[in-house]
């Protein structure tokens, strides 16, 4: 455990906060051994994973170490030591408690240089799909006609794959029942995103700007 006075004080405050939120029964159970405390690391969110993958892909595509270092030092994603540590944990790079930022930068750059080819290949494909799905999601929200929206989805090659369709539904918070075929998934997406919007407009008896333009 860290021996820094500051860390010890912070840890004590954390424990104090934790205990103050327990009921008297919960404290009693802990003292009597009928309950226990455990350490659970938070998983990084899917959103953060996507950002890390994108960041690593850009880094891997840089031509020189100097460019890589420059990008590493000047990006918004790694703006503090905690972010560096999270990225290292994501890459299974061991981090010592007192390790400074320069050392972490070296480790990250070393990892990227060693795995350059596979990063570009693997993440390149994945992120292309992710970016395409994000783009489709923003496009579908702008439609004011369900038939046109459905045709737009049908014509998109990325969405021929059912798992990509489900990813699109998830990014739009569209609820899907199990065992739907591709066409049914598309109809659900269009109904939930475009259909619901048109219903709302009809009830409120107002026109959207796009339909006026049309």
């Amino acid at each position, binding site marked *: 455990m860290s021996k820094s006075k500051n860390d010890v004080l912070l840890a004590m405050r954390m424990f104090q906060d934790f205990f103050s*939120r*327990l*009921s008297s029964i*919960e404290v009693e159970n802990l003292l009597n051994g009928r309950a226990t405390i455990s350490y659970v690391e938070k998983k990084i969110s899917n959103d953060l994973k996507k950002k890390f993958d994108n960041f690593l892909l850009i880094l891997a595509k840089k031509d020189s170490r100097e460019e890589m270092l420059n990008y590493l030092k000047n990006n918004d994603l790694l703006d503090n030591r905690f972010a560096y540590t999270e990225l290292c944990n994501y890459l299974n790079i061991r981090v010592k408690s007192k390790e400074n930022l320069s050392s972490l930068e070296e480790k990250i750059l070393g990892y990227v240089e060693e795995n350059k080819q596979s990063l570009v290949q693997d993440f390149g494909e994945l992120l292309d799909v992710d970016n395409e799905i994000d783009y489709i999601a923003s496009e579908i*929200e702008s439609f004011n006609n369900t038939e046109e929206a459905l045709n737009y989805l049908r014509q998109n090659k990325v969405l021929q794959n059912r798992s990509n369709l489900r990813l699109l539904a998830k990014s*739009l*918070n*569209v*609820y*899907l029942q199990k065992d739907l075929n591709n066409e049914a998934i598309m109809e659900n997406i269009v109904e*939930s*995103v475009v259909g*619901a*919007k048109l*219903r*709302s*407009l009809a*009830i*409120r*008896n107002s026109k959207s700007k796009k339909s006026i333009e049309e």
Partner: protein
Amino acid sequence: MKTISVINYKGGVGKTTISANIAAELAFRDKRVLCIDLDAQANLTFSFLNVSKWQELDKKKKTIKHWYDEFLENDRDLSLKSLIESPETINNKLRAYKSTGKVDLISSHLELINVDLELATRLGGTTDRIIRSNYLRLLSRLKRRIEELQNDYDVVIVDCPPNFNIVTQNAIVASDYYLVPAKPDYLSTLGIDQLIRHIELLTGKYNKFVEEANSDEWSVIDPDVAGVIFTMVQIYSGAPISAQANYIAQVKRTGTATFNQFIRENKTLFAVAPEYGVPVVLKEDASGTYLQVRSELEKVVTEIIQRINI
């Protein structure tokens, strides 16, 4: 002073729970809050007072129904001040927390349901001028009496019935803002659009009559939607379940103001709290899930304060 109506056509979405908890938390943050219960079910009233206390108020003619009765029977426009009650339990709790805020209440009555029918007979007239005058006079009654309380309160919270009758319209005309608690399901989301449309139509008609009247006696209204608060949300892995997230996203896509914070389902906590006269948000020994519910309510109030600048 800001007046906020809590409204939704659908019953059982948490209007009264939201009203009671918002009032309590605002008072905890040292605001002077007046709750007006316009729902004939009187649930907000019974969230703060027990039945015997309410019976006393009824005998003394200290409910909102009696206020409307004076108008209907004797054509008298009484002050609301005589109807105001300070519920003991919640205010004692606030004192124990060292809060300088308070929660006062104007109680409802089960017979308020008949008042709507009688009020409707006061609309209409033989000429356009009389129709306009009757309309404005009838719908602005609550607004005028609430305005008299400007110096006594920071916030007025009006718990509306699940309909759009005259009593509810009184509340909307009197309000600076309205909050819409809603369950994230198909029927509730349809109801939100209908409600907003009706309020816009009411505002349009009222303001048209004000302009035609061309008199200092009346002023235009502009009740703004403070937002939709999603209630009874089922949580899985820290987020609403997909079926509900679906409807939350749909409402957001319509451009309707929606609160970032939602309130999770907790039948035990919300079922029991009204019986003790202290809303969940003031529960002191909360832990685990109860603590999560309480902090969600606190965050909703923080959003309200930011959105409407209390």
